[in-house]
């Protein structure tokens, strides 16, 4: 089966600064890929390139059979294959939880209000927030907001979910509820790419671990093997820093 995401020689530059260099990556359906690395190593930028929120500077990108640069492929077509969860949640503050989840299906999938509402209720139930559907984001805790954001991303029925440090803005006691939802998704077979500093979660849930440093993929492999015997000093240093 052909991979769901393919990057070949992907480059990203911000002015003179090279943020991503020569990224080659294939992700297959059902994989749960956790991306770790020091800050500034390009993890978040990589995710944002995969759904073209950042335009790439060079190389090839193909998501769900849609190639960036093909005349028939719009950025939107690639974004519809991916769902994204942001560090700062980015819920629409003028909409209730339910309306937040409904917006994608309504605007992107052209669903009727009734269909979208039914879908939203189902997804909010799935993230454990059925009783919060009429609350505005400002009335929800950080953990609840992030779970609404996950439901919102799922609502357009993406083939892969991108998580950009989904628990970094949360108080420690609220992280568990978000990680639990993510673990549930992984168990259901959702393809996921997760940038995180949660090493326990990485070890428990990831089917594959990527270590990035200075815009490159330094290691890419089985998390158990990588964690047990770090193949480089850089990675060993990094692990020591995050674990203290």
């Amino acid at each position: 089966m052909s991979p769901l995401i393919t990057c070949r020689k992907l480059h990203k530059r911000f002015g003179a600064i090279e943020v991503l260099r020569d990224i080659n990556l294939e992700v297959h359906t059902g994989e749960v890929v956790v991306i770790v690395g020091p800050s500034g190593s390009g993890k978040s930028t990589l995710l944002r390139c995969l759904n073209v929120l950042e335009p790439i500077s060079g190389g090839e990108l193909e998501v769900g059979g849609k190639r960036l640069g093909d005349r028939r492929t719009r950025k939107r077509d690639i974004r519809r294959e991916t769902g994204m969860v942001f560090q700062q949640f980015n819920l629409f503050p003028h909409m209730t939880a339910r309306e937040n989840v409904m917006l994608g299906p309504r605007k992107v999938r052209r669903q009727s209000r009734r269909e979208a509402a039914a879908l939203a209720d189902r997804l909010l139930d799935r993230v454990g927030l059925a009783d919060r559907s009429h609350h505005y984001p400002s009335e929800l805790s950080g953990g609840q907001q992030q779970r609404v954001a996950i439901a919102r991303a799922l609502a357009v029925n993406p083939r892969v979910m991108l998580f950009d440090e989904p628990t970094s803005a949360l108080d420690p006691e609220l992280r568990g509820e978000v990680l639990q939802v993510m673990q549930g998704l992984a168990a259901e077979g959702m393809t996921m790419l997760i940038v995180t500093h949660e090493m326990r979660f990485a070890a428990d849930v990831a089917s594959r671990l990527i270590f990035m440093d200075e815009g490159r993929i330094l290691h890419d492999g089985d998390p158990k093997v990588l964690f047990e015997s770090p193949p480089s000093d850089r990675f060993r240093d990094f692990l020591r820093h995050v674990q203290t």
Partner: protein
Amino acid sequence: MDFRWDVVWNALPQMVDGAQLTAQITLLGIGGGLIIGTLCGLVTAFRVPILHWLVFAYVSVIRGTPIVVQAMFIYFALPLALDITLSGFAAASLCLAMNAGAYITEIVRGAVQSIDKGLQDAGLALGMSYPQVLLSIVGPLAFRRTIPPLGNQFIISLKDSALFLVIGVAELAQKGEQLTAQTGRALEIWTAVAVFYLIMTFTLAMIMRLIERRMRIL
């Protein structure tokens, strides 16, 4: 000096006329200013090529000159240059619209630019088109943020309309001057004029407060 209520009483009909004209000029001025300001504000917020330089020039000229000079220019100089005649009422309304438009341009630009980029990203990431993101997310949020500063600008415009007495428009302040000359009772007339303005600005402020409360300001 005693306060002669009969002077106020006799002047009331004329003052009501003046207040009506003030209200009309103000409504036309802020209505026109809203249209100008919304269009120009969007042009600068999205840096529409070439046009945003024109808007920049327009805002700079209006903000950089006193509104009295603008009124004089529109009433006396512009008709000469363009070979047209403008009534005092038309010149006043146009002047106020142009003036309010420049400040509202800045209000709209500020509101649009204050919307968190992350919300735009969230909309785009769902696969929405850019116009959809503007219509369903950025627009409604920016609109809410314009309400408090707009209320402020409306009140400023209402009060600015007083200076159109320099071009002989029979609005409230000009009536005040006229009535003072007729009666020689400055204390009664100007007190009454001030109370009229206060009632109008207070009403405007209450309306804006109501709109603000109706909408969740975010």
